[in-house]
């Protein structure tokens, strides 16, 4: 039974990784930027979730507010941080993004205090018995449900709406898309809005599972999500999801069986390096 338990815990963790990494993939697919500061938006989502829940008592409202606010801030990050340096070599944007991330962590520490915040009445703490002796919190089930719903909605939208088609056209060939009258600028804003909103959802959910948001909450996801999108083949949405779930499961088993020689966070990169040596284009990457 331990195997199954670990597997399910791995899927829960993997769903969260998926929500975070998907936003990164969206940004990378469109602009070829490794958007480290994405994890800062994830932390911000967590803070907004906790604060709004504590003020109003409504978790659903908190989730909604977090998505909107963080989505808009994500658009502002694109406008003021990335747009002016898009024509520079890619490492410039990478370093700028890392600097932005460190600065945000410091700002959270100064504004919200170094010790973090918790829910006064943490919602969704009830448990369901899946099989004898193994229980899942409602929150953990919610994580999986939200991940599935969000990601399928996104897949459906990108396949079946005009906006979705415009987005895919811009990813494939921006110049051609512009020639067909697509406003590239709007596609980029939308892209950042969706990516950041997904990060906010993940932030609210992680804050719920740990019942804690700290200024440094984003530091592990910041680089682990990078590992995931590289594993997934940089820019491939399907690959990212597979990699996120696989990593969640591998970490769940690895912490138990490899804990003596390698710590949990290094595991992701051991996996990454092994995969890249065999398949330099990532798990599901093309070419």
């Amino acid at each position, binding site marked *: 039974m331990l195997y199954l338990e670990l597997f399910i815990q791995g899927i829960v963790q993997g769903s969260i990784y998926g929500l975070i990494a998907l936003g990164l993939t969206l940004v990378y697919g469109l602009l070829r930027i490794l958007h480290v500061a994405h994890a800062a938006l994830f932390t911000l989502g967590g803070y907004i979730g906790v604060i709004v829940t504590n003020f109003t008592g409504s978790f659903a409202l908190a989730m909604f507010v977090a998505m909107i606010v963080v989505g808009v801030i994500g658009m502002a990050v694109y406008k003021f941080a990335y747009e002016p340096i898009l024509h520079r070599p890619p490492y410039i944007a990478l370093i700028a993004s890392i*600097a932005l991330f460190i*600065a945000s962590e410091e*700002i959270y520490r*100064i504004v919200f205090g170094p010790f973090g915040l918790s829910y006064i009445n943490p919602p969704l703490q009830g448990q369901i018995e899946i099989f004898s002796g193994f229980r899942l919190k409602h929150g953990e089930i919610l994580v999986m449900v939200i991940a599935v719903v969000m990601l399928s909605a996104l897949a459906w939208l990108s396949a079946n709406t005009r906006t979705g088609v415009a987005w895919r056209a811009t990813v494939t060939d921006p110049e051609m898309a512009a020639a067909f009258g697509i406003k590239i600028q709007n596609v980029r804003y939308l892209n950042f809005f969706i990516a950041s909103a997904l990060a906010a959802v993940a932030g609210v959910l992680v804050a719920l599972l740990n019942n804690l948001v700290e200024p440094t909450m984003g530091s592990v996801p910041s680089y682990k999500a990078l590992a995931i999108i590289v594993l997934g083949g940089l820019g491939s949405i399907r690959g990212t999801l597979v990699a996120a779930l696989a990593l969640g499961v591998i970490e769940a088993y690895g912490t138990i069986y490899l804990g003596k020689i390698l*710590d949990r966070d290094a595991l992701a990169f051991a996996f*990454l390096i092994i995969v890249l*040596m065999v398949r330099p284009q990532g798990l599901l990457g093309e070419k």
Partner: protein
Amino acid sequence: MAYEITLATTMAISVLFALSLNFISGFCGQISLGHAAFLGTGAYASATLTKASVPFLLTLPASAVIAGFFGFLIGLASLRVRHDFLAITTMGVGFLFVGVVRKQDFLGGELGMAGIPSPDMSREMFMVFCIFLAAVFAVFSLYIRRSWMGFVFDSIADNEDVTRILGIDASRFKLAAFVIGTAGAGIAGALYAHHFRYIGPDSFGFVQSVSVLAMVIVGGIGSVWGVAFAAAILSVLPLLVQFVDDYKLLLYSALLFAMMRFAPDGIAGIVRRSAARFRRATP
């Protein structure tokens, strides 16, 4: 005086470390986000040796060889990946290093190694020695830059595919850059260990790797003087701005962001541009 000596020694070690990354990322254009792992390799190797009562000076070549050997392995692996994949792979190497060191009892595990013997020289002498090594590495960098090898590095940084079409074995030169750069970091690590006389896994993590890359980029990627200058300033800036202690990291990251946003070619670029303007204004 003691404080100034410590500052100058710290500066010299940072300059050496930044120049070693400049070989890989500056000359050869291979962005590495895990260079601190090689500083760490050198530091741990040298500390383990001096604790086994090997003379300090002998541990320097040993750390260079060990770090360079690991650099060779990582370089071999890195040949398979390019650009963004390379940046993330090297970042992975950095995390792997810290993750492995944390779990090794003979390297002190989480707690790190304390009580590393002091080098067999006075503090003044050690400072001079560090500055000397940094200067030697700077001259060596300038020499390589003007050599045939430097031209090939430049060409790889500019466009690797064209370099290959010209019939140059780009892989071999990339490997050479990795080995020289990581060996230099190994020497810097040996100095680091005997300067602070305490090392732990967190001294060589992602933050260190990012800050050394920041030194290279703020200085002006590839420029020996720019990088040396930026490394000297940025290494002691956090110590000099103690009065804003609580906002130190915020200031540092804001500076870095502003630099990327407004002057991505670094200090060397600013100097070059203002020199050009000056020349245009005078005739």
